[in-house]
């Protein structure tokens, strides 16, 4: 059953894809092993074949084949009118793409790094998310901004931004943040189909990660967390790359007989607080892990909502594990300590389940 969206802000009726229940999605295990960057590419290619209004623009996406090879080969198939190299001019091309979306096209904008989106802040925060509201429902903005987000490549302070802390504060955007190749493909396809602006946060550290990605088409809905590991001692909630650190910590704890729920949220907005609450009701303990700075972060939001809606189920104060509240350091050891690494997560869970 597909759902149809009719809205005056759209130039035509849009059909949203069919979202299957989690247990009916194609198998996550198999031997079609590809890199995460290839999963992203497949998502874009499939949607571009389906809809000629979809195009990709960004720095080095065409002739260079992508600064991180996500768009490798796409110029050959779709040509320079749909795979478009831009100058290093984020404010300009982000704004141009926003207007193209208003006018009825379906742009995918690649930021080489979300760190560089800061120079386009006015366009992506003032225009894309507010156009529908400011125009009283006349123009929406069906656009996807995607690129690398997060630290851990020794890139220093300016190139290591986790923008979710800043951007999730703004109403009018949806934010997707996959932790693995399988979800990356299904979430990016949904992002391209969605008629609202989507910020899609990838991790450069994960682009080479390999896993099975099924050949058949599938879409993952926004606002549906995945229970990546099951237990009863504690609820561990995370977004994007740190989900993998949580699983690492959980594995170690399992060796000590401590079993935890690990929830991979997949999207920050919408936030599947229902799944978090259901898990907290069972475990009575909560640790939230998030790669942005702690002050006003997604972790802070999850904890606030749990306190607002599930206070009585908590037997221990919730704990958050964020990046340390300092600019991102360059030195390898400092940077490793700065991020919410498996060791810090292990310690946090241990402190919650033992007291």
């Amino acid at each position, binding site marked *: 059953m597909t759902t149809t969206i009719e809205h005056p802000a759209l130039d035509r009726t849009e059909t949203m894809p069919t979202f299957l229940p989690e247990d009916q999605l194609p198998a996550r295990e198999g031997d079609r092993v590809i890199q995460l960057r290839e999963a992203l590419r497949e998502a874009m290619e499939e949607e571009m074949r389906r809809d000629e209004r979809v195009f990709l623009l960004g720095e080095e996406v065409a002739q260079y084949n992508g600064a991180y090879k996500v768009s490798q080969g796409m110029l050959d198939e779709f040509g320079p009118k749909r795979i478009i190299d831009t100058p290093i001019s984020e404010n300009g091309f982000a704004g141009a793409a926003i207007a193209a979306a208003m006018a009825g096209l379906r742009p995918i904008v690649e930021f080489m790094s979300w760190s560089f989106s800061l120079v386009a802040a006015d366009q992506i925060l003032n225009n894309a998310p507010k156009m529908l509201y400011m125009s009283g429902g006349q123009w929406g903005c069906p656009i996807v901004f995607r690129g690398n987000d997060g630290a851990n490549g020794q890139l220093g302070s300016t190139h290591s931004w986790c923008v979710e802390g800043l951007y999730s504060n703004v109403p009018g955007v949806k934010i997707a943040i996959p932790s693995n190749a399988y979800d990356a493909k299904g979430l990016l396809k949904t992002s391209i189909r*969605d008629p609202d602006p989507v910020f899609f946060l990838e991790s450069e550290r994960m682009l080479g990660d390999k896993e099975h990605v099924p050949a058949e088409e599938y879409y993952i809905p926004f606002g549906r967390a995945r229970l990546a590991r099951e237990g009863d001692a504690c609820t561990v909630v995370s977004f994007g790359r740190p989900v993998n650190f949580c699983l690492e910590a959980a594995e170690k704890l399992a060796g000590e007989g401590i079993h935890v729920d690990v929830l991979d949220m997949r999207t920050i907005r919408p936030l599947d607080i229902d799944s978090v609450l259901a898990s907290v009701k069972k475990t009575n303990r909560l640790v939230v892990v998030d790669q942005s700075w702690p002050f006003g972060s997604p972790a802070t939001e999850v904890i606030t909502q749990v306190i607002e809606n599930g206070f009585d189920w908590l037997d221990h104060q919730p704990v958050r594990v964020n990046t340390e509240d300092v600019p991102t350091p360059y030195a390898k050891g400092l940077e490793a300590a700065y991020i919410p690494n498996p060791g810090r997560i292990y310690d946090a869970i241990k402190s919650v389940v033992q007291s």
Partner: protein
Amino acid sequence: MSQVSDQATKRLSDELSNDTLLGWLRSMQLIREFETRTMQAYQQAKIGGFCHIYTGQEALAVGTIGSVNQDDPVITAYRDHGHALARNMDPKVCMAEMYGRITGCAKGKGGSMHMFDKPNHLYGGHGIVGAQTPLGAGLAFAARYEWEVLGTGSKKVCLCYLGDGAIDQGAFHEALNLSAIFSLPVIYIIENNGYSMGTAIHRHSANADNLISRGQSYGIKSIEFDGMDIRNIYDHFRPLVDECRDLQRPGFVDLKTYRYQGHSMSDPQKYRTKDEVDEFKNQDSIANLLDHLMNERGCIDEDGWKAMRKEIAAQVKEAVQFAETSPDPDLSELYTDVFVNPEPNLSPSGDYRHGSKNPLL
């Protein structure tokens, strides 16, 4: 350019019908009357926020918009009432927006700086100085994409307006560069009224007497001319529109104009003299066109002009009446028009939903 160089004897605007020019006169007078009423309503605190009056610059919006097709996209900055009316937005809906009514063009969610009119291809009304200039490039990109890739549209030209205060913004230079390298059919129109808010152009912009050099430095065809005389605007602007449409490439225009009122309603105007304002009022664009129509074309007389003004005054009065008596948005509208596809759990403070239909749709 032959039409222009030869204009002593024959002007391109001479080919325009009396009806067209009378329509422009009407449109300019409508803007002036509308803005007079806007100022009154603002002084009575019926209009809130920032409010920028277009009086003095009427020929510019009417003449340039009069040079393009009805479905060519138009986008502008916050001094936008004139463009909205020149684009045929219903004055009632325009005034109601400033009153913050549900019957306004943005359902009372935009205000004076955010005039949007989808049926008339007016893409706003934008409040941040220069922010509309990348958008203008994008509208041209979309139009070209529809024509070239999708095969669903004809060749279009986007008009993107900005004040001389916006020419110093980085966004504008990025927009010019993109328009040039992608060969986008957008014409950037500098409404050069000589002031960036209260800062005179020689104090805010380098090489201010030669603004077209900025367009030229990107290889964009750039022209400058007087923007107070609407026939002069058409003579120079229409050929550029045709060229940019035909060749699908950008243009840049520095149009000299003047605003009779302050930057916004809260401007005491201490940075300029009354003599300077009077000097420009003496070359008023409405008086100028009226003189041509009365004395050279003979297609309107004093009685006709009086009747036109009376009719317009009644129309604007009706718009004010409409705004006065329209209801405020229901508080339930707070959570509408945020998402086209509102899903659960997007916000901890409320559920987004679809609201009432926009009055223009």
